[in-house]
């Protein structure tokens, strides 16, 4: 029963580290990289004025009303 913690640590610590690194890598490549790519693609073809005018015509702004009013 001596050195039980040390024995268990020797077994579990490398596993813990390996598992953490694997989980972090998996998250990076399944979540953060696709998200960064999605944002890059969105803004590549983004026309701010066009979007603004579409929103203005929909009538959501209070400071600038649709062209009809």
């Amino acid at each position, binding site marked *: 029963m001596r050195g039980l913690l040390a024995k268990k640590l020797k077994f579990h610590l490398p596993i813990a580290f390996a598992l953490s690194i694997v989980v972090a890598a998996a998250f990076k490549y399944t979540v953060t990289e696709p*998200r960064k790519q999605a*944002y890059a693609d969105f803004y590549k073809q983004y026309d701010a004025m066009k979007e603004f005018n579409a929103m203005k015509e929909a009538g959501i702004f209070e400071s600038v009303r649709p062209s009809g009013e």
Partner: protein
Amino acid sequence: MPCCFPCAGTRQEQRAKGRQISTLIQVSTSQHPDNRPTAKPPPRSEAYHADVPLNTTTQPSLGRARASTSGHGRTMLHLTTGRLGSLLTRRGIMALTTSNVRMASHGHAVEQADMSVPMYCDRIDTPLPDRIYKDELSATEKSLKQKEKGPWAQLTDEEKLALYRISFKSTYAEMKQPDGEWKTVVAGMLFFFGITGLIVIWQGIYVYPETPHTFAPEWKAKQAQRMLDMRVNPVEGFASQWDYEKKQWK
């Protein structure tokens, strides 16, 4: 961890105590129908005698047991038997009873387990209980104990087994036998889930106020249209699922 306190909760202990309880309930209600306390409790060996099998309880005696125990205001047992009485088997009652010490504290002919001295228990994680099992040895057992003081090679196998049974009540194989307690546990769990479900349903009808007008489908449609107009989360979220050219969901 000492044997005394945790023992009250283990299955083996409960079963042993449950057997005591059932024996003693039958003993007490048959001997003292008017539920008067006796002068002195029966000796311990009597309590251990008739290994009353679990399924010989007849309904009337269970009813008497219910009357005698609930009359003393043992709220937990009262609730248990009152609610679940006819549905519960003897095993179920034992599973819900914590210790016969509680039951014993109202002075009819029920013995008190003296918890101020070391107690015996069968636990797989405590190989050596606080005391040996048998405290009163018969003559043969006493002579066997004398023989044990000599060289053990002279003991026969039966004698060795007898010595084991003096010190211990069950073997590890006997302790580890599955006892189906899990069925009672799951049944009790599901039963209380059911009660909770009924309460939740009743609550939904009688307690909650009216849902706000903003939950109406027409309002929610107008709300969704406004969110699309505002381009809510256009990259990966809500508005990204709407095709603005074709005016429909992607």
